[in-house]
């Protein structure tokens, strides 16, 4: 193996700009966190709604939830990203289509967030559904027997418990959001993957560049894990088993 190590590369200036490579990595980290976090918020809200819909009594509403999940779960994230970026603008009415293609601010970021958010929402919906179905049926009957409407039963009886039960799988999905956000580079979001590829091209220091990005991804996923574990402890209901 004939590799020229140069760990000082991060403090060197990028040719043709006044930034150092460490600035590049910080930019990349910023975009990765921005895409993953906004997509997660979106996925959590939409996923909760769709997952709940799948369990309600109304057949048409449950159907909407099922179609939503099956569609967004069975197409690869990268393909969905391209659909939103290349295909959807073409199908819009003429004026809107022109605006999206030419004037929309932060187009890449918004598209990536939308694609990742919807993709992740299907996974969140599956966890929410599993959480609701893991509750004993008696809880629903108890709520209805108390005179709650179906909506109130969900709001005050079912969902508070279901969400607590699914925190562990939601933690993995939150971490996955960071990992999956790596596809955003393909439409030009300057995330960690994009910047590390750029750095490989520019500096030729393959191992250093990839290692920096990889470590930052691991740090992101670990931070996501810790945040969720705090939420899990805070929302713990006495009398139920708490994972260590």
């Amino acid at each position, binding site marked *: 193996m004939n590799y020229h190590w140069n760990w000082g590369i991060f403090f060197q200036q990028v040719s043709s700009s006044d930034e150092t490579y460490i600035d590049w990595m910080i930019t990349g980290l910023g975009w990765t966190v921005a895409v993953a976090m906004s997509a997660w918020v979106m996925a959590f809200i939409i996923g909760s709604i769709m997952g709940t819909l799948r369990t309600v009594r109304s057949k048409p509403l449950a159907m909407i939830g099922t179609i939503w999940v099956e569609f967004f779960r*069975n197409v690869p994230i990268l393909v969905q990203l391209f659909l939103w970026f290349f295909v959807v603008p073409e199908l819009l009415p003429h004026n809107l289509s022109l605006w999206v293609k030419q004037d929309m601010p932060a187009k890449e970021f918004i598209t990536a967030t939308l694609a990742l958010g919807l993709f992740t929402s299907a996974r969140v919906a599956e966890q929410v559904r599993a959480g609701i179905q893991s509750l004993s049926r008696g809880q629903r009957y108890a709520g209805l027997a108390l005179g709650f409407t179906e909506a109130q039963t969900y709001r005050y009886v079912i969902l508070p418990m279901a969400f607590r039960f699914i925190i562990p799988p939601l933690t993995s999905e939150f971490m996955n959001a960071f990992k999956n956000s790596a596809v955003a580079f393909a439409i030009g979001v300057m995330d960690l993957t994009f910047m590390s590829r750029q750095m490989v091209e520019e500096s030729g220091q393959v191992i250093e560049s990839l290692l920096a990005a990889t470590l930052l991804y691991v740090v992101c996923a670990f931070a996501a894990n810790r945040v969720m574990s705090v939420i899990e402890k805070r929302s713990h209901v006495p009398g139920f088993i708490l994972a260590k």
Partner: protein
Amino acid sequence: MLSTLDFSVIPLSLPFIWTGLLYSLKLTLTAMTGGIILGTLLALARLSGGVALATASTLYINTLRSIPLLMVILWFFFLIPIFTGAPMGAEKSAMITFTLFEAAFYAEIMRAGIQSVSKGQINAGYAIGMSYWQTMGHIILPQAFRNMLPVLLTQTIILFQDTSLVYAIGAKDLLKAAEITGKNYNRPVEMYLFSSLLYFAICFSLSMFVKHLNKRIAIIR
């Protein structure tokens, strides 16, 4: 607008799309076979290897599971030329990457499968004079596979979806083939739609099959 779409490009593109799809499927099957074999060995190492072997296997599994697959693909693609001095084709590099990466995920599934078989069966194997490998090969692993079959297949669906990520190193899979034909015929919108339809059809029917399998296994138990 919808009215300007021209789907007559699809029949023209079929031969090229087919080679792309074939590569995607080949990559999936290779990574599945290799990943399950390697994953089973990793799971065995984690469960019954010595301290050193178990630690190494745990480290391998946890590391790969916490890195985005895209980064792993890039690592391999860029590192191989450094080690061997000659670049390896994107297609071949992806085969190795996916096998090694998926092994970490299959390993965790197999671990759960092995742990789902009661301990008494291992003791029973030893009691009738079988060696460790005989017990595993004839008693534990067949049951673990059977119990975990739906989960292994679900992971394979995810794997098939993930093969689209070889886009990053330019390997010609289904997505790349759709992109190239889209450019050649100047019909990118139609080709992206067609390829997503293909992905959906394959993944959806596989997941329906897994659901069916789940029900069958549930009845027998």
